[in-house]
């Protein structure tokens, strides 16, 4: 029988991460359906002020310890494991983010509980939780059953609305002492984002290029279109990894989050990691020769003509229209 849902609250540089509110939203739904408490745990430095933002939880466990800020996955998992046992929780939610990567996996090994990655939905069904994961860059969904409501879910960023997890009011705060062994992994410093020549987060129009642009020689075609539209060129991860554009132009999970008036995606499949960084764009137009590309599921307009054929024609027509 289920005894409670435990959320590992993520924070970075003194700010509660969006993923934490997303987890609180889905966690609340599950807790209400199962009639069990929703417990959040926050560890690190200055956790009380962070905990005050977690009003959606029934109670918040506080582990005040500066050594836990940016601690490696194994150390975080140790704390989470101790709290999991203390609370006799059945279900644990962790963020499927770069910051929390590994925490749930290590906890799974130590508790022998099933760990479900890439979770974008979860519901209670009788004695089980059914978790839906998006695999293969969003092309396939998989439903996994967690018997007795027991398991660890890694919640995919952007899958649940963060707003559903925000609630004013102070939850019950409970300090928790957890002994941790000193970690051999030492955090040295932050490296600030490269500013580059263009701040893509400030652009109203972005022409985004992906793997489908095929070669660095084709980037100028996209730049001409961006110039005609008064915007800038950005890219998905494969293009940046090839060194065709600087890191400052990357949109997605590890890169920038952008919300332009127009996001024109050229040869981008729309994998969840990319979608995460541009889903807030007001108008999304996608060009991809694969009619099944996931980008078409979220874009407003789309076409399957080849981006390389379309680019020069479109640029000329826009120039003519603008005079």
């Amino acid at each position, binding site marked *: 029988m289920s005894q409670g849902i435990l959320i590992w609250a993520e924070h*970075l540089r003194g700010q509660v991460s969006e993923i934490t509110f997303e987890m609180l939203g889905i966690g609340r739904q599950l807790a209400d359906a199962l009639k069990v408490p929703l417990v959040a745990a926050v560890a690190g430095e200055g956790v009380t002020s962070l905990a005050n933002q977690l009003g959606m939880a029934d109670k918040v466990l506080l582990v005040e310890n500066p050594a836990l800020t940016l601690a490696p996955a194994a150390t975080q998992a140790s704390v989470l494991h101790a709290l999991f046992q203390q609370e006799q929780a059945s279900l644990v939610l962790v963020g499927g983010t770069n910051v929390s990567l590994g925490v749930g*996996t290590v906890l799974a090994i130590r508790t022998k509980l099933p760990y479900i990655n890439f979770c974008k939905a979860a519901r209670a069904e009788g004695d089980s939780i059914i978790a839906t994961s998006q*695999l293969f860059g969003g092309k396939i969904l998989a439903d996994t*059953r967690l018997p007795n409501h027991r398991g660890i879910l890694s919640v995919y960023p952007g899958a649940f609305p963060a707003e559903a997890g925000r609630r004013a009011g102070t939850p019950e705060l409970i300090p928790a002492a957890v002994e941790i062994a000193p970690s051999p992994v*030492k955090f*040295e410093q*932050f490296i600030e984002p490269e500013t580059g020549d263009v701040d893509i987060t400030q652009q109203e129009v972005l022409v985004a290029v992906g793997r489908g642009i095929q070669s660095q020689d084709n980037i100028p075609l996209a730049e001409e279109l961006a110039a005609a539209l008064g915007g800038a060129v950005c890219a998905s991860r494969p293009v940046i990894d090839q060194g065709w554009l600087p890191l400052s132009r990357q949109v997605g999970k590890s890169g920038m989050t952008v919300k332009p008036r127009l996001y024109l995606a050229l040869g981008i499949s729309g994998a969840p990691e990319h979608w995460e960084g541009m889903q807030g764009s007001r108008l999304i137009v996608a060009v991809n020769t*694969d009619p099944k590309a996931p980008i078409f599921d979220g874009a407003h307009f789309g076409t399957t003509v080849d981006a390389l054929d379309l680019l020069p024609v479109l640029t000329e027509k826009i120039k003519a229209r*603008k005079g």
Partner: protein
Amino acid sequence: MKYYVLIKMVPDTVEELVIGPDGKSLDMEAVRPKLADSDEHAIEEALLLREKSGGEIAVVALDSPEVDEVLFTALAKGVNRAVKLTGDWGQLGSIGAAQVFAKFLASDGKLPPDAIVLLRSQAYDDLEGEIGPCLAEVLGVPFVGVVTRVAPADGKVTVTKEFSGGLRGEFTLPVPCVLGIQSAEKPPRYVPIAKVRAAQKTAKIEDVEGTVPEALQAYEVERMYLPEVAGRAQMLEGSVEEVADKMVEVLAQNSLL
């Protein structure tokens, strides 16, 4: 330094993915296997590290369809050893695979003191979790994931990890360790097919029998399916000219021109 790069084949998502008759897994007949993207970067990072400060690189894979081609490609790029762990791995998840690799890397339970294990940060079919932290846990060594830069010095290694929004962090950890590579400092090098063919003639893949892991942690995939098409984009059809005209209209209607 000894660099071990542990690689994995994944279905190429450029090809259409088909659900198998059981409704719970992919139709593997229809799958075209390819090397996981960030494993390609892990191999490159190992080559760059050896260029800077010497050492030896072993690329290790579980036996799976078309993995030989990938191992020969790695040999053609210049890795010192390519090892294939043979066995019936079926649909082994990350935790099971970590146990198999751990047995190979540390037969006496301990990694060599100068070993750095490099592998993908995450693959898009890692439903059971990331293999890097699993392996580090089994071996009892430290781990950092989402790494884009590796600099060894004095028995330690300094790495850069990506957070989000372009923010990164620098961490130092002792060797031996496991690093989840997101991308190498340079794009993965290209190797001509002729060199791969030459490697097939001159170099050798070492076949090593893998050890089947103990009881695996069970989880049950009930159903695998294609996403429902919700809020599908309005498609602009026609020739390139016609599509361009329609797109210009869309932009004009949205006051973007």
